[in-house]
């Protein structure tokens, strides 16, 4: 259920767009204009809303998880990146986390061998995760050439690198292959590994299938059912300049691709994909371990009922005196 249903959902969405635009051309306006605008709006406002919701809750305590030596005596080497005490060090830790997935890199695999537990290195998830996120980012950035009259040099350079191993024409992008591989691996892993399968929900498969669908439709569009590139650019420029045009003959596969992307944008703020924003707000990672150096303030700290020394002495005065302990009141 949790695998099949998301799969059907994604196929259904793709078919919806496909059938929609092939059966009735008027619907192109819906898929090409209304949905994209709505999706971008939902994404931006939804994303902001979620982040603001998180930010609204205070961070009452200083609770970083430290992964290295604290700052202490001057002759003990302080691990600045894993146990930061300054903002700069925290930024360093966060960069490592966000750009190279530091914590995942630590991942281990636990196994039982003849009554002994052994821990092996387990880097596949890290590698696939990294490959997936980075290629996603590259491909995303690459698309910006559709939105510029003159393609910026940086984008051109990126493309150059990406298609370094040129295979046929049009240029073959390595990232296309990598993202397909990575997503497939991530799906496969969820189905294949018993522990991961057990913890997975439909909402873990849905975004994976969706992204797979986006990548596949993109690749099909680029290499097989060639779409009219000039028309696509015209279309994209229209969207960003807020004067949308629907060029003729752009090809149905384009709308499938676009519609799936829009679905992703709309789904994003409501889902775990928000980890993209959340990772920056995670208190265990983005705080400095400086709570012994500077007082951390809890905005909702309130006085509590305590058992005071006076009450304690009242309870035990006689016993204390007998034991020779000093007391405040005789």
């Amino acid at each position, binding site marked *: 259920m949790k695998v099949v249903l998301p799969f059907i959902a994604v196929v259904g969405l793709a078919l919806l767009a496909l059938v929609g635009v092939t059966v009735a051309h008027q619907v192109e306006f819906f898929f090409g204009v209304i949905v994209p605008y709505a999706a971008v709006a939902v994404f931006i406002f939804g994303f902001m809303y979620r982040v603001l919701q998180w930010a609204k*809750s205070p*961070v009452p305590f200083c*609770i970083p998880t430290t992964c290295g030596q604290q*700052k202490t005596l001057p002759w003990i080497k302080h691990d600045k990146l894993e146990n930061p005490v300054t903002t700069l060090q925290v930024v360093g830790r966060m960069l490592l986390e966000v750009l190279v997935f530091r914590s995942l890199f630590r991942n281990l695999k636990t196994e039982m061998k003849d009554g002994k537990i052994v821990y092996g290195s387990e880097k596949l998830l890290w590698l696939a995760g990294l490959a997936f996120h980075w290629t996603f980012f590259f491909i995303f950035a690459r698309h910006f050439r559709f939105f510029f009259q003159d393609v910026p040099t940086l984008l051109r350079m990126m493309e150059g690198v990406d298609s370094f191993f040129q295979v046929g024409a049009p240029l073959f992008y390595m990232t296309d292959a990598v993202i397909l591989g990575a997503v497939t691996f991530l799906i496969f892993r969820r189905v294949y590994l018993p*522990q991961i399968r057990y913890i997975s929900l439909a909402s873990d498969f849905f975004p994976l299938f969706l992204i797979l669908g986006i990548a596949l439709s993109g690749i099909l569009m680029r290499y097989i059912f060639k779409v009219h590139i000039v028309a696509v650019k015209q279309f994209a420029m229209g969207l960003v300049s807020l004067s949308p045009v629907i060029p003729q003959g752009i090809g149905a596969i384009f709308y499938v691709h676009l519609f799936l992307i829009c679905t992703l944008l709309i789904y994003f703020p409501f889902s775990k994909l928000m*980890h993209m924003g959340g990772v920056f707000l*995670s208190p265990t990672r983005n705080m400095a371990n400086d709570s012994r150096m500077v007082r951390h303030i809890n905005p909702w700290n309130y006085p*509590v*009922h305590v058992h005071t020394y006076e009450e*304690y002495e009242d309870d035990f005065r006689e016993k204390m005196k007998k034991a020779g302990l000093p007391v405040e009141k005789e």
Partner: protein
Amino acid sequence: MAKLPTPEELLKIHYNPPQDENWMDKPAELKQGNICWGAKGKNLKIVEFPNARDWSPVEEDWKLPQDWEGTVLEAMADRLSKYRSFKIFMDICVRCGACADKCHFFIGGGDPKNMPVLRAELMRSVYRKYFTNSGKYLGKLAGARELDLGVLKEWWYYFYQCTECRRCSVFCPYGIDTAEITMMAREFTNLLGLNTDWISGPVANCYMKGNHLGLEPHAIMNSVEGMVDDIETITGIRINPSFNRKGAEILFVTPSGDLFADPGTFTAMGYMMLFHELGLDYTWSTYASEGGNFGLFTSNEMAKRLNSKIYAEAKRLGVKYIIGGECGHMWRVLNQYMDTWNGPADFMEVPKSPITGTVFDNAASTKMIHVTEFTADLIKNGKLKLDPTRNDDLVVTYHDSCNTARGMGLLEEPRYIINNVCNKFHEMPDNTIRERTFCCGSGTGLNASENMELRMRGGLPRANAVKHVTEKYGVNTLANICAIDRATLSASMDYWVPGTRVAGVHELVANAMIMTGEKERETNLRGEPLPGKGGNE
């Protein structure tokens, strides 16, 4: 009480969950041997906890208050608005599973709901149902489920099977800390009077008497007196510790476990001998006679109420700063909560070692330093005369306590000390020490006796690593800096790696330390002949 299975039986662990079931449909089976007894009404009453009554987890009826669901959901909404950590951790887990096999309870037991991600999902599923739209409308498909008695029992069972050790957090790409979620779950269950006896008893004790063990002032002094006698027998030196003394320079706070039972008492003797040798102007307090904080295993508020005594007493006695003993949770509380709860400690001074002159800027605000920071500084500055050969019968390895390792990063100080007071030291495998260290298996108030199976399972990963160095290097001593470790690892070693002793770092220090005017030492603190002194070579 459930019979404890043999190690061979416990080792039959399967890590692969059954594939034909959805965990949401599988109610928790409260297994004897894995659960602690319910809190007693009288203890809950002492600290004014709700729904104080006697109850038993194995009985059908948990004597819950009216509309308990409402109470929980209301508390959940409240905590979501008060703790960003809780809210974020409810929302951003991607169920990548990186944390799945990192929990000692999962590794030692194989129960899939002990995978940190799933432990947290027990809570998240309810969160989704009541606090997210997808959960409200899509229900189970979105991983949401209603809060009912079955879920509550499941929560209780699994959230009292998490030692809040935070190992899972180290491996999570977002730092999701299941311990935070456990702490919330425990807050909620406490609103329904659902704590365990082994937590609520110490909490009530600590509140009324100043320490978990409920030692009254004279009992503390008796206990220390006994140790002073032992020290005299061993070293020929009579030391004279002071209590509740106003005007002392330093207040010393350590877990009461150190005053009560072996092997903690040897560590306490170690502190006393060290401070005596230095001529330190320090005092103990009977009012603030506890460094540990079982309140942390009930609610934030209770933890704060117990912790308040330390600063209050420092103020009353007029000390300049505080030294804290070897304890695990104590240091998480002191490092990450104390100043926020009960500070500012502006009536004290930034700690400065009177012996070496070292200023501890890293404790500029809390005014509290760890005894291993203090001692490492002494050794570095050559202030102690040490004869490590006295520890030559010990082949030592070091267990990082979860809270000192992951809560503050106290990694090198104890190692530096051990390497200076012992000649034979071997690390356990890399993946089981420092920030990757394993829990003793009995933290957060699980060190009762009715849940031995759980404790031994939870202790397996640590024990397994000890066994490795025992076989490889002949390690026979497991040093650590936590009172709970000293109490619970002893049991776990007896079970998994018999013959391994558990010792505090300052016990080893005191063994090696040559005191001014001491007689020729024949035995170590445990009364065993020193190497070369009793034909035990």
